[in-house]
């Protein structure tokens, strides 16, 4: 297998790490830099702290190396190996397949004794041949081109450079500005020199690099700019245009940015977000008005969610720091996305900065204020200590953002059920920022208004997909799953659960999303009687979370513990309750930890403690004042009451029914 010098180093380290042997043959004519390459490899190997043995001569019994690994054996001028050395080499190569010994051979080309050994090995079925890599000193292509360029005619060079920049033939001819006859002649010469492949006219390996390397930076840029302009005139596809633009200096025309953005969208949709991000970073070099740059930054931040989430956050912060005209929409979207990503400190500060802008339109100011109160509340910070001071939410808000957040804050506190439902419904009537709508959906599901909640979720999914708001979409799918669990639609809920991961890779999940997903997963697994699987799901989850995510995690742990150790489970649920209360969540409909802790106590025979919790749950459900929740609480309380005290088995039977 032919590899480059860089690959060689990677493969060598990798095979030693895996405890496997490998052979690397560095081959090329005299003066092509074999020895330099070998010594470079040797340098690299020793710097990595791997043992290096430079031979020949090979020791009488090279098998001694087999126990000494990992090591690298370097044989320069292997073509001059004598008969006995070849024998020793053969003995060694037959055995290194399973030991960390890499052999680097430098040979002068065809017909070496070492190659014969390898051919023998390959044919001998009784041993496994180690992987065999062939490396040509990198210098050779560069040298070849450097030498060849010196003798090429001007036309040939022009064409060669054009092909190197465009990567393809027809545009290159245009770029070289040669007539067909001259171009064909030049092409034939290049082909004869081996610089261009014969079948399909592209440059042979490394030639493009070498040709470009022989140009000055200014020449390269000039040629690339020309190629881009030409490509635009020839209406190249977005993919090709983007490839040309990526390396080219700024064009200064809107079409360049648009081409990059379009191609980035295509790549991102195919899941190739890192490549998309590269194009968008390039697009940022094109001049544009602030609002356009803001759009670009938002798109970029969505692409960076997978591989550089911090960078993505910072793009959004930058949008919120912008003060140009027509920035209202982008700023609000950036704030919305930051809030949804659960980067609370960053979001709060960025929103504070945006709110300090003196000429903010009133609607934007209200909406940003709403989002501000969302992040402050969800982070569990005290309302009143903020400096600079942000105005409080109005008592009866009309802005949909404020309505959603106000409803959610009311609902967390566990009172004013009817008012909260009205506000949440109002919030879902708008098509604005997604975070407040998700909050409103939570309110509705805590108020047992499942159908309204589901309709809201569908709308959020549509808008979220349109804006590429990936976290919001995942959150919406998760909420659909939990609403369906509450409706006892277990199969559909399981589908949603799986869909969350399809919408957003696990690595990008905010802690709370992750914890809520875990609860849903555990509930569904337990409903299916798969206790072991539920336990495994718990073990998978990261443990170092705090705030609300910790409460949800505890709840999941409590559920699993309930099956076997009801008293422990009750303890965990109480801890979950303390954690929720510390974060300001009192509403009994958010998580039924009180009733489940009661279940645990009852199963453990602690009837009085169970009854106290049931009574508390009743009181709080009454305070929340939503009939549906009160009814559900009564039903579950009846189930707990109906359970024989001190009987853990009864809990198991109960859990296997879907919770209503």
């Amino acid at each position: 297998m032919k590899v480059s010098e860089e690959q060689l180093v990677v493969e060598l380290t990798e095979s030693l790490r895996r405890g496997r042997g490998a052979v690397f043959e560095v081959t090329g004519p005299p003066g092509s830099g074999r020895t330099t390459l070998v010594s470079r490899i040797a340098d690299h190997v020793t710097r990595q702290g791997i043992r290096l043995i430079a031979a020949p001569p090979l020791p009488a019994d090279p098998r001694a190396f087999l126990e000494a690994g990992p090591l690298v054996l370097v044989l320069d001028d292997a073509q001059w190996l004598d008969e006995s050395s070849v024998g020793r080499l053969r003995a060694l190569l037959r055995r290194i397949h399973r030991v960390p010994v890499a052999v680097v051979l430098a040979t002068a080309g065809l017909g070496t004794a070492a190659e014969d050994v390898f051919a023998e090995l390959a044919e001998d079925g009784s041993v496994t041949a180690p992987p065999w890599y062939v490396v040509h000193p990198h210098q050779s292509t560069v040298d070849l081109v450097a030498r060849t360029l010196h003798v090429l005619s001007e036309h040939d060079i022009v064409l060669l450079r054009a092909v190197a920049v465009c990567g393809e033939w027809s545009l290159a001819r245009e770029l070289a500005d040669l007539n067909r006859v001259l171009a064909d002649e030049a092409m034939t010469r290049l082909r004869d020199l081996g610089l261009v492949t014969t079948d399909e006219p592209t440059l042979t390996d490394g030639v493009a690099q070498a040709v470009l390397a022989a140009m000055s930076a200014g020449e390269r840029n000039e040629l690339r700019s020309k190629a881009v302009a030409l490509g635009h005139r020839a209406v190249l596809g977005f993919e090709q245009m983007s490839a040309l633009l990526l390396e080219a200096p700024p064009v200064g025309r809107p079409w360049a940015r648009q081409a990059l953005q379009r191609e980035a969208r295509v790549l991102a949709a195919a899941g190739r977000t890192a490549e998309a991000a590269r194009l968008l970073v390039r697009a940022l070099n094109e001049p544009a008005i602030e609002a356009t740059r803001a759009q670009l930054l938002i798109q970029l931040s969505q692409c960076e969610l997978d591989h550089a989430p911090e960078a993505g956050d910072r793009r959004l912060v930058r949008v919120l720091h912008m003060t140009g005209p027509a920035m209202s929409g982008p700023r609000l979207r950036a704030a919305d996305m930051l809030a949804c990503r659960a980067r609370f400190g960053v979001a709060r500060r960025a929103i504070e900065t945006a709110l300090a802008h003196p000429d903010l339109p009133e609607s934007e100011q209200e909406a940003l204020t709403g989002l501000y109160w969302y992040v402050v509340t969800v982070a569990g910070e005290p309302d009143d200590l903020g400096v600079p001071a942000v105005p409080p939410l109005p008592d009866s808000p009309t802005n949909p953002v404020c309505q959603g957040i106000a409803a959610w804050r009311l609902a967390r506190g566990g009172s004013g059920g009817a008012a909260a439902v009205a506000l949440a419904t109002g919030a879902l009537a708008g098509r604005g920022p997604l975070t407040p709508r998700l909050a409103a959906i939570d309110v509705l599901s805590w108020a047992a208004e499942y159908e309204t909640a589901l309709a809201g979720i569908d709308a959020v999914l549509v808008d979220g997909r349109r804006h590429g708001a990936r976290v919001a979409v995942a959150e919406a799918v998760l909420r659909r799953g939990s609403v369906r669990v509450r409706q006892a639609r277990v199969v559909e809920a399981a589908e949603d659960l799986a869909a969350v991961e399809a919408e957003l890779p696990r690595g990008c999940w905010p802690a709370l999303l992750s914890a809520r997903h875990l609860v849903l997963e555990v509930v569904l697994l337990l409903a299916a009687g798969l206790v072991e699987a539920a336990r495994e799901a718990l073990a998978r989850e990261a443990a170092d979370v705090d705030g609300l995510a910790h409460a949800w995690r505890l709840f999941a742990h409590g559920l699993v513990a309930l099956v076997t150790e009801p008293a422990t489970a009750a303890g965990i649920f109480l801890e979950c309750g303390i954690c929720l209360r510390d974060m300001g969540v009192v509403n009994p409909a958010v998580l039924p930890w009180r009733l489940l802790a009661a279940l645990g106590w009852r199963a453990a025979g602690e009837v009085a403690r169970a009854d106290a919790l049931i009574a508390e749950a009743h009181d709080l459900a009454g305070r929340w004042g939503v009939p549906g929740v009160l009814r559900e609480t009564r039903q579950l309380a009846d189930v707990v009451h109906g359970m024989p005290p001190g009987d853990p088995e009864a809990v198991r039977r109960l859990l296997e029914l879907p919770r209503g």
Partner: protein
Amino acid sequence: MTGLDVIATALRLAKPGAGSLVVLRGPLGCGRSKTLKDARKLAESTGVRVLRAAGARQERDFPFGVLHQLGEELDGPALITVDDLQWADEESLRALASLAERLDRLPVVMVVCVRDGDVGSDSPLVQQVVRRAAQVVTLPRPVLTEDSRRKLVTCLRAQPAQVRSVLDAMAVLGDDLELIMPLAEVDEIGCTTALRAMDRLGLVDHLAPRFVHPIVREAVEETMTPAHRVRLQTRAARLLHDAGKPVEIVAGRLLAITFAQGPWAVEVLRTAAESAMERGAPHVAVEHLRRALLEQPQAGSRRATLLAELATAERGVDRAAAATHLSVAARMVTTTRERAAIAARFVPGALAEAPPAVRELVGGIEDELRVARPHDDLLGELALRVEARSHHAECLAPGRFARCADRLGERPDRTYPATSAGRELMAVRLHCATIASAWRAGEVAVIAERLLSHAPARPDHVHTPIATLVTTLCAAGSVDAVSAWLLRALEHAASTEQVFIEAEQALVLLHSGRIAEARTIAENVLATAGTRRLASEVLVTLASIACETRDDNLVSRLMRLIKEETHHPALSVTYQMLCGAAGVAAEDLPAALAYLRDAGSQAQELGWRNPVLYPWRAEAAGVLWRMGDLAAARELAWEQHALAVQWGAAAGVGKALCHLASMTEGTAGVALLRQAVDVLEGSANRFELARAVEQLGQRTADRQVARAEQGDCPLTTAQRRAAELAMAGRSNQEIADVMRVSVRVVEKHLTNAYRKLGVQGRGGLSAALS
């Protein structure tokens, strides 16, 4: 073969007329010139004429410059050496190439040197010469040392602009090398080419990429002008930021740049400070925020925000600075709400320690809030928080007793607060009422426990009024809940908060009668604090442990710490108490009495009447008793008792009764002791109970009586006494001291007690005896 060997062979072969070209090539400093010198010596020693020339970068434009150096015509055997061929002029290169062509027919050896990777080493003309070589000797990469620096700098200065910008970028970026290209403003091809060239020159490992030796980086830095370096550092910080590098790395780079960078930098520094706080590194956070303040030099709300954040970072490490920064910030903002939000961030203890001007500022904000009524929800909350701080400060300040008592009223409030701000104020009111002994311990304990159950057990409670609950609950003798709560708070505590929480735990242990453990923690706190200043509330706590345990060492160490800080009223009282304890230890009873009376009169003046927190009367009574002034001793002991009864905490009353009993002879004394045992049965302080029972046993010297007191306990009096003391956390040695027997006897008593009670060890005692 070495380079010299190759040349020697070539010279030998050249004698009959078959000359050749030898190329010596390799990276910077590989020893080409030295080999050449040796070769010349060798040639001269064998009578071969030597012609020499060398390329020079500045002379590349002089036609035939190198050739002219060789001078004379060739006739007869000769060695021609050309150093630095890569810098030879074009004409000379062509001539040398054509000469090389003819060498095999001449008795001439030509040796040329090429410095790989340097400018010109890849030029086609140089390559043309090299290709005609019979031998190419590649010299190995040398080991770079400090001595190579000069040579390196010269070589680097001569590199083309593109190479230099790549090297500069590498030097500035350090470990984050994927950003070389944007920082150097070089395209990928240019960057790779430059790196390869530098690799061949022996300066860079282009695969990593990195400098082969720190000296190269230093040399690169030497070639940069300071202005250029700062420009690059600034751009590097921005690039690292945009590439999503961890915020603390970017912030670390910003620290090195001392001029303003704009809003993005402020955001980075604040985020970095936040994450430093989260991982428990407040010093780092402070550093970042100080740098952020550099970005916002004008007074205004933005600077105030940063100052407030700085104060939050500082409050665990330098409370005085935190208080100062908050007061500066409060003067910078324009709205009442912002002023209040800043005032609400004061750490109560720090406010009490702060200069009067700071307290007046907070008092002023409190008044401003009072005038600004009616409040919306947020302002209402803030008003409560500010009131809590101001009230707390007043309660600890001299001359404010009347106002503080006014605020408190006769009885605790009837309504229980619904918000965290309200609970903060309530905690302070309870604390003040406790210090002044204005309300009853029972009532205080009930409310304090409820407050505690609503407070998240977070480590940062130590910076809020919630921390006062610990002292309040200890004074009221209700310690069970707070002990568990503190354990939870300690779980996530950073080292700065750990000191406070441990001191709180020690106080709880002291009031649970687990005196030995309390003392151990106190010693730990002192040891870990080292030379750092401890907060006043921590010092007060440690001092109370020192006095109670009569640990001379602890007393004297604390006296040294507190001596300089007696301007703070609480520390002043504490200092007098410690001096009293030291006097007693030194048997200097009159001095001890004077100190204790001073402490008492100061406390009295401040309105601090709580007999549990300020037991100077009991101490003074003890001293008087020993001095023989029995009447005065009894009087003080009765006063202490009366106050304890008024406060109503069982431990305090029981202790006062015991003390009185020790001064009262006969059945009256025994009756007092019986009463003490009765009272202490209801207290959490098991040690006081044990001591009372022990005294009762001694006084009656009647097993029957003692046994009757202890119900149907199977233990002898001595065993019972030892067991009670063991339960109270006393070590065997301590029990031996109290019972005036040897340690071995104590061990025997305890072993018998375990056997009779059927328990394994100390752990089982409390269950078996309760």
